[in-house]
């Protein structure tokens, strides 16, 4: 639970999952877990110290990723990060990680992000590396810049069902493409224009998603 490791705690209590296989069963055996700072136990159930008699609570060990990589709309020249749209677990995973890499659509002047600090998500002292990567979230969306690419994702959905078509996809779109420019050329300018976000809505209204 990354919420735990943002603070110097070893575990986070959770009142959910009791009586389910999420608590009862463990996917990775102890011999794979008990190394590199990974706790041996997936979780521990304890008596709830503040609960009623017989109440139990699930304790989740803190997650400590070596590296977190996130994509953001804007990073300033000093490394301050601004994210538009929801943040899911991005901020928690950055605060829990030993190193943070932020890829971004734009690098903007530090003075610009300082004009409206309420909108900023991460301070520069948590960010170890910044990578300028326009369309870096493609084929998924980057709100206010571009929508997801439905043609690409529908293709991906079809090829992901089979190991051979999956390998062919990787060859075509990942290993076989020599640069991010070549990748974007392959996607095509017209398609990138189709998925361009409306600057008010943040996505591409009316985009054909079939």
């Amino acid at each position: 639970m990354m919420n735990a490791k943002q603070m110097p705690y070893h575990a986070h209590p959770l009142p959910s999952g009791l009586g389910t296989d999420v608590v009862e069963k463990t996917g990775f055996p102890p011999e794979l877990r008990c190394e590199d700072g990974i706790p041996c136990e997936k979780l521990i159930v304890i008596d709830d110290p503040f609960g009623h008699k017989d109440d139990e609570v699930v304790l989740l060990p803190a997650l400590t990723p070596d590296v977190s990589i996130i994509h953001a709309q804007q990073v300033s020249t000093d490394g301050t990060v601004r994210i538009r749209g929801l943040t899911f677990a991005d901020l928690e995973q950055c605060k829990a990680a030993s190193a943070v890499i932020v890829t971004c659509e734009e690098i903007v002047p530090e003075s610009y992000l300082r004009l409206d600090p309420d909108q900023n998500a991460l301070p520069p002292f948590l960010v170890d590396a910044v990578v300028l990567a326009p369309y870096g979230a493609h084929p998924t969306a980057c709100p206010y810049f571009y929508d997801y690419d439905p043609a690409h994702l529908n293709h991906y959905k079809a090829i992901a069902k089979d190991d051979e078509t999956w390998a062919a996809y990787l060859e075509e779109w990942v290993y076989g493409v020599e640069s991010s420019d070549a990748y974007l050329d392959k996607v095509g300018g017209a398609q990138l224009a189709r998925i361009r976000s409306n600057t008010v809505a943040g996505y591409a209204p009316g985009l054909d998603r079939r």
Partner: protein
Amino acid sequence: MEYSPREMMAIAAGRFIKDGDVLFAGTGVAMLAATVAKRIHAPHAHIFFETGGIGPTLEELPMAAADPRVMAFANLNAGLVEAFSYVANRRLHTIAFLGAAQIDRYGNVNSTVIGDYHAPKVRFSGSGGACDAGSLASGYIVFMQHGVQKFVEKLDYLTTPGWLSGDDSRRHAGYRRGGPIAVVTNLCVLKFDETTHEMYLAERYEGVTPEQVQQNTGFALDVSRAALTEPPTAEELRILRDDVDPQRLILG
């Protein structure tokens, strides 16, 4: 008026929602049902997603919990931890909409594996927020296709706690509230007995017999209380087809 089972399912689900309700929506048909509720039955319902999109207007149907359509024109955009602070909030009556691969007679849900957990035939994406939503919300509604492979005597994996083994077992396990309210399928609406918490047939859709529901259910079902579902009105269908899912992304 002609309509498909999935159209009936989306509208039957939307009818569960009252104006002002606070809804936690998963993906797929759950997203369609939430949008239907918002656009037809409960325009003042508040819908939020585990990724942190809180109260979007849903002008367009989202396809995933991180679709920019769950962020657009929202009350606010937050994150995972904040979303669950609303699911579990004691002041709020929150209803979760979930999908499922398998369900049992007590509304316990499997969205993790088919087959043995350590050597599965099919591995799904797993709980995601489903276990926590089912644990912490005031109640949940499940959407799924009806079939004997899906309505089973024993789950291959228990992901989301329902009424566990029936009667008071959910409360004894430590849950202070919640539990499954209904299951909406392509054939019918199922609910749970107030005392035993066993699933029963509450409503069957036009053209569906109780025998047909039983044949598609892998455990004995009480069908004696079944009413006939009110068919969709022309207006409900018009909004569903023209406004909610004009590209038939989930309606098919």
